[in-house]
């Protein structure tokens, strides 16, 4: 039996196949199943629920944030209308079908704006437009319009069960030209504002860190590729952030970021650059928190980028650089015409790995901010954990983690395609 190679070959790959099956394929398929079921902590029997974990719209909110209250041929008429806003009044008038029109009375004009189910809602909504919105005159096509706008507190025009009634309602309810937005409400993760924010955060985190890693890693590699005393020591030191376990180094960063006792704020206060009341709250403010996460990931990841690029640089034969010097290329031209294109394939490989690490990073975020403050820095991996494990919604957690899969697949395929073209 030892004469033939095939059985031995199968025997040798069997452990690997088992490993792939047990530790990769099974959990993956399991989470796919979970994401299509009502799996929850404490729920023994899972039943198929289709796409409900991904997207289940229960209602549509219609929001409006700008109304064209009136239109004029002449600009001065529009301005006169705007000036008369202070003396404007609002009434609710009965309309057909038992509905009520909210009417705006300005400068002798009566403008029906909305038509709602009861008189209180109608007059309240129009009163809000009158007193809380910002009014201005704007040219729109051939007419001059008086526009009422709001940035952050749009008017809710109602909640609807399906798209058709919603469309009809908008047509019937809004009597002037208006900008409306539709917000889906429901129990699927796509309807969860935290999930939408987690997607945005994941991209921000990934591309923010990758860009910074390149901006720091490339010069670092160029520096380490030069001959100078202590180069070997420096090469060793540079990789330290990469080799320290993240659980330990992130703990260090936690101390650094402490808003009262951390070294950054301590230094800012004691050098009298910033008063104690105005120091950045690194983990408590959502922008600073995202900045802190990116900082930690860049600090930890740039050595990897630098070392890979350094490997690419050392692989360029000296004679190529010497020929470029003879050809008349100065240092910049050598970098952009010779070195960069020759390093690019290996740089893409490092970028590929790095993007995968950052896109799926859990540890850094979990240790530094735990997704906080108030879920403002959740990324897909932490939010999946938060929802799936901590809150017990296993199905939704699985659905969130599976969202990463197609996105990553697209990114990886795009980069591999690029690599194939390069080499």
């Amino acid at each position, binding site marked *: 039996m030892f004469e033939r190679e095939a059985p031995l070959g199968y025997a040798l790959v069997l452990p690997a196949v088992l490993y792939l099956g047990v530790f990769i394929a099974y959990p993956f398929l399991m989470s796919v199943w979970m994401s299509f079921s009502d799996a929850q902590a404490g729920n023994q029997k899972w039943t198929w629920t289709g796409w409900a974990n991904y997207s289940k719209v229960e209602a549509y909110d219609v929001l409006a944030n700008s109304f064209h209250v009136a239109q004029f041929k002449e600009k001065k008429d529009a301005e006169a209308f705007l000036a008369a806003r202070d003396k404007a009044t609002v009434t609710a008038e009965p309309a057909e079908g038992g509905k009520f029109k909210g009417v705006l009375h300005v400068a002798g004009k009566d403008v029906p704006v909305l038509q709602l189910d009861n008189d209180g809602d109608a007059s309240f909504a129009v009163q809000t437009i009158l007193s809380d919105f910002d009014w201005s005159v704007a040219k729109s096509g051939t007419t001059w319009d008086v526009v009422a706008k709001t940035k952050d507190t749009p008017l809710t025009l109602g909640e609807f069960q399906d798209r058709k009634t919603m469309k009809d309602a908008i047509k019937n309810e809004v009597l002037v030209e208006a900008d409306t937005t539709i917000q889906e409400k429901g129990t699927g993760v796509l309807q969860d504002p935290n999930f939408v924010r987690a997607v945005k955060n994941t991209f921000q985190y990934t591309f923010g860190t990758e860009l910074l890693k390149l901006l720091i890693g490339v010069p670092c590699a160029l520096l380490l590729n030069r001959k100078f005393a202590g180069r070997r020591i420096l090469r060793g030191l540079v990789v330290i952030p990469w080799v320290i376990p993240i659980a330990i180094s992130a703990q260090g960063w936690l101390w650094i970021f402490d808003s009262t006792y951390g070294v950054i704020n301590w230094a800012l206060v004691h050098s009298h650059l910033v008063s104690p009341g105005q120091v950045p709250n690194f983990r408590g403010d959502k922008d600073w928190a995202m900045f802190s996460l990116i900082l930690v990931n860049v600090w930890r990841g740039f050595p990897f980028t630098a070392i890979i690029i350094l490997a690419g640089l050392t692989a360029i*034969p000296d*004679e*190529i650089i*010497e*020929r*470029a*010097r*003879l*050809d*008349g*290329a100065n240092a910049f*031209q050598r970098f952009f*015409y*010779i070195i960069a*294109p*020759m390093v690019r394939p290996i740089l893409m490989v490092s970028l590929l790995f790095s993007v995968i690490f950052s896109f799926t990073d859990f540890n850094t975020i979990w240790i530094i901010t735990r997704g906080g403050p108030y879920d403002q820095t959740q990324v897909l991996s932490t939010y999946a954990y938060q929802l799936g494990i901590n809150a017990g919604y296993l199905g939704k957690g699985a659905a969130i983690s599976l969202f990463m899969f197609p996105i990553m697949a697209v990114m990886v395929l795009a980069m591999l395609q690029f690599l194939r073209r390069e080499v």
Partner: protein
Amino acid sequence: MAEVNLENVEKRFGETWAVAGIDLTVHDQEFVILVGPSGCGKTTTLRMIAGLEDVSAGDIRIGGRSVVNLPPRDRDIAMVFQSYALYPHMDVYRNMAFSLQLRRVPKKEIDRRVNEVAEILGLTPQLKRKPRQLSGGQRQRVAVGAALCRQSGVLLFDEPLSNLDAKLRVHMRTELKRLHQKVRSTMVYVTHDQVEAMTMGDRIVIMNGGKIMQVATPLEAYDKPKNRFVAGFIGTPPMNFFSGEWVDSKVQLGGGVKLPYPRSSPNGTKSVVFGIRPEHIYVRPSGNKGETAVPSVIEVVEPLGHDVVATASCGAGVFQLAAEIHDGLKPQDKLDLQFDMARAYLFDRDTECVL
């Protein structure tokens, strides 16, 4: 005018002397070959001319202008590297055009020059290819082409043929010589192969241990070697050497071999090295004056075709001789070999200079 002058040029790497003070003038449009064993400082000399290596001492002038403080790109030189140093990400056209593009030569002119050079080198069908899609010989020609496009006064070559197979090497030898006659740049060419040196150079510079042993035309280097090193380096198979004593117009070698040495020679007794090329040892007397019979035994016969290299031994030691296949030499033959004393050399055993 691109004459190259080296004046007492030295190069030291730490404790080792790569080049230990050389003087050399390469005339305008001359094809000069630097030849010598590996590690003798040829590459270093070339790199100092190119400006890739600073001189430790001395002066280098190109076209009468001292260049030791000029960067490589301002020296009016182009170089072909041993590894070809082609830019792997650029196609052949771009490889040849790159230096011209950097020098802001007009696009039309670049196109004209690249196409002309490609035509000369037979690279026109390959212009759109990347280096990795080319054969070794084609890459080598691209490297030469890139240097030619520059139309610089001086072209430097560092063992450009050493990565080619034997047949292609012989072909490129002729090709490069033809090219030199066409472009008329000053060429400095480094090789460790004395056959290449002899066949290609207008003059050859034989180097050893960082020093120049002799500068001569190929014929001079063969006929009138200045010292034992040159005599042994030039010529295949190499010259035979025997140490002996010079006494009273005779050379006494080991084993009682005594040879008359007719040339005017130093007086008295002297320790010498006697040298004679294999091709100046004959199987039969030719009737020339100055031939001396030396009883010998043939040990090995290596036929190369028409020519035969035989190894023989006499009382003074083992030596090689060049014969013809029709001479019918066989191992164990005992015969009197004729040493052509008119074409033999005597070297001082201490200074190794020819006497």
